């Protein structure tokens, strides 16, 4: 497992990055371009926003939308209600745009820079393998829209998706090709004013994904975006928008990793989901961003706003997340259940080790009659980490016969970590049935010895017990992802066991 970690978090310090760029200059595979970064000027002001918009060749309305968000952001303050200790962030000391230089659009993964593919391989993200998987007769297909730094460099399976009528594009490309559609939905679930980080994202979002599944279409494959943060000092501001029309279905997988680095790095993504009548969206995340070293130095700040709108009757949105990375996680994938009998689900595993901090949970906003929600949260704390579940279940006065079931389980490893469960329940309609269960436990010496006496090492024993603890959540993940997630849990716990 130790070897794995080295492979999964290659040390890309400045010198090495420069070395890699130098190597690419003598690159012999046929492109004339290299992977040199093109940065927006350092700092954040209206010019930065204009630069990004111009780089992306955006229409005027898009620029205006960004500028409006930026002006609003300048008047806002960073939230401080979470149980997190966040060092002050100097927003002027960062770059807000980094992209590989313009190059011809690629038709397939074969044309992707082998260096980039190699990086993915090191990170344990088998793009090639997924292609092979997809090629197998009868195997479930996975379409990968790979985001290297901020711009999509590879899109596969587009033809097959297009045939089904599914649009799966980088959001920049969608702004060019389907401007009216983007304009109609962008910011309708998470408006820029929603919160400080969402507002920042609206001003400077670099790229992300756009998915549109038309009425009655069941998306023929799992859609998947893998992205990682590569350049020094480049905050990433992903923006994802998924619209699923009446009776449509889509399953979307998001996985993230980042190389080792010394400086803290901000990531503030926004994800918006919209499900029409009888539509279903499944959104799965495995997040493994660099958590900082064993002393708590470095690591990603992950301040994400994810929200789904169950707009139509009987629509369903399901969030599944496995969060093992980042130094600080501030994340509450939520559902606004406005459709009658709509369904919201949140399945979460959050694992923190060393000095990691996570404040994560969900909000289930019940507006529609008969809407139901399920929340299963598994928090694992090791080392000196702090792990909080924060969840809101709100039932509007007009929402009859709402049901919610919440289960929050915490597992402690060692005696220097913390687990906190902070449920908020606001019910304005007396017909609601709300259940909340919470447990806190430790891995017992008996369990560990039992597994070891059967041949498992101490670390493998703990990993197995932790995986068992998370089973209800892991089984919600698509197969390939579940395997990756199980490995991650083991890797993330390294060094936490005496």
């Amino acid at each position: 497992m130790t070897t794995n970690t080295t492979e999964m978090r290659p040390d890309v310090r400045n010198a090495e990055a420069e070395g890699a760029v130098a190597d690419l200059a003598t690159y012999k595979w046929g492109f004339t371009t290299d992977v040199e970064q093109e940065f927006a000027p350092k700092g954040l002001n209206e010019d930065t926003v204009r630069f990004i918009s111009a780089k992306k060749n955006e229409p005027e309305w898009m620029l205006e939308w960004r500028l409006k968000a930026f002006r609003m952001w300048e008047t806002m303050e960073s939230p401080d209600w979470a149980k997190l200790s966040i060092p002050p962030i100097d927003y002027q000391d960062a770059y807000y745009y980094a992209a590989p230089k313009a190059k011809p659009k690629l038709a397939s993964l074969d044309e992707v820079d082998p260096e980039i593919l190699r990086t993915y391989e090191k990170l344990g993200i088998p793009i090639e393998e997924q292609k092979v998987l997809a090629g197998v007769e009868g195997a479930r297909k996975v379409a990968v829209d790979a985001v290297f730094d901020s711009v999509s460099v590879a899109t596969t399976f587009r033809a097959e998706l297009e045939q089904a009528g599914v649009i799966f594009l980088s959001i920049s490309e969608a702004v060019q090709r389907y401007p009216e559609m983007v304009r109609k939905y962008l910011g309708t679930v998470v408006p820029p004013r929603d919160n400080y980080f969402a507002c920042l994202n609206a001003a400077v979002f670099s790229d992300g994904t756009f998915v549109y599944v038309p009425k009655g279409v069941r998306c023929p494959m799992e859609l998947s975006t893998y992205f990682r943060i590569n350049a020094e000092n480049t905050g990433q501001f992903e923006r994802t928008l998924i619209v699923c029309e009446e009776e449509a279905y889509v399953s979307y997988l998001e996985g993230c990793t980042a190389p080792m680095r010394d400086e803290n790095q901000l990531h503030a993504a926004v994800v918006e989901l919209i499900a029409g009548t009888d539509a279903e969206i499944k959104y799965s995340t495995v997040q493994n961003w660099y958590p900082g070293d064993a002393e708590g130095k470095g690591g990603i700040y992950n301040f994400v706003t994810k929200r789904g709108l169950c707009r139509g009757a009987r629509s369903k949105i399901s969030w599944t997340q496995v969060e093992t990375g980042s130094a600080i996680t501030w994340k509450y994938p939520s559902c606004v259940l406005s459709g009658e009998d709509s369904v919201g689900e949140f399945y979460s595993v959050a694992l923190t080790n060393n000095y990691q901090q996570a404040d994560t949970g969900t909000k289930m906003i019940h507006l529609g009659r008969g809407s139901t929600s399920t929340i299963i949260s598994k928090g694992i704390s090791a080392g000196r980490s702090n792990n909080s579940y924060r969840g809101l279940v709100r039932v509007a006065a007009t929402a009859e016969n709402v049901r919610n079931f919440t289960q929050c389980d915490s597992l402690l490893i060692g005696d220097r970590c913390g687990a906190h469960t902070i449920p908020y329940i606001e019910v304005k309609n007396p017909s609601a049935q709300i259940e909340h269960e919470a447990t806190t436990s430790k891995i017992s010496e008996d369990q560990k010895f039992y597994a070891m006496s059967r041949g498992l090492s101490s670390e493998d024993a703990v990993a197995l017990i932790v995986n068992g603890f998370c089973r209800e959540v892991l089984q919600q993940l698509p197969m390939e992802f579940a395997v990756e997630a199980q490995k991650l849990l083991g890797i993330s716990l390294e060094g936490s066991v005496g």
Partner: protein
Amino acid sequence: MLRIENLRARVEAREILKGLSLSINAGEVHAIMGPNGSGKSTLSYVVSGREGYEVTEGSVTFEGEDLLPLEAHERAARGIFLGFQYPVEIPGVSNLLFLRTALNAQRRARGEAEVSGAEFMKLVRAESALLDLDMEMLKRPVNVGFSGGEKKRNEAFQLGILQPKLAILDETDSGLDIDALRVVADGINRFRSPERAVLLITHYQRLLDYVRPDYVHVLSGGRIIKTGGPDLALQLEREGYGAIAA
């Protein structure tokens, strides 16, 4: 195979084993009997490598190798198996996944090839049929919601799949009704072979009616105070530990 010489061991400040010696050769079945608190379970933990048991004197070797520096999983890979008096529950981990992970971890440690899913299931079907175990039960999380008898049969099942060289069975007979006792005893008898050895830890003579030991030892006050043949167990049953210890 297993050689224990003048073993002294303690838990925290309390000395429990006080100069215990025991030799077990391949092909033999030994039974250790003794009153509560005599150190029977401690002996099983010290041999299988549980943390928290400090050996202050003496030695434990297995096939000539010093066992004491090895961790529990390393001892398991050498071929030592402990059947638990109280098998432990591991929620969310299926019994079969647990066992396959363990088997392959042992095989890797020994430099052997891992068993494939299909090979493993073949082993599982054969062994579970012998022990009258329901396949559905085997898919359930490890020992969660198992009855006392099911837990013990599950230990016998693990023994059958892992095929160790030395099986230490700690009160495997407790909590079993007569039928289940026979099934588990049959499992132990199947395990017996000239290459393997068994150490039965038990309170009662009952199990020994089904699994006939070569040697019976009486453990008292952290030491073996008497060794004999199967008849010794019958004598204990008749006269009690007090008479022997006196």
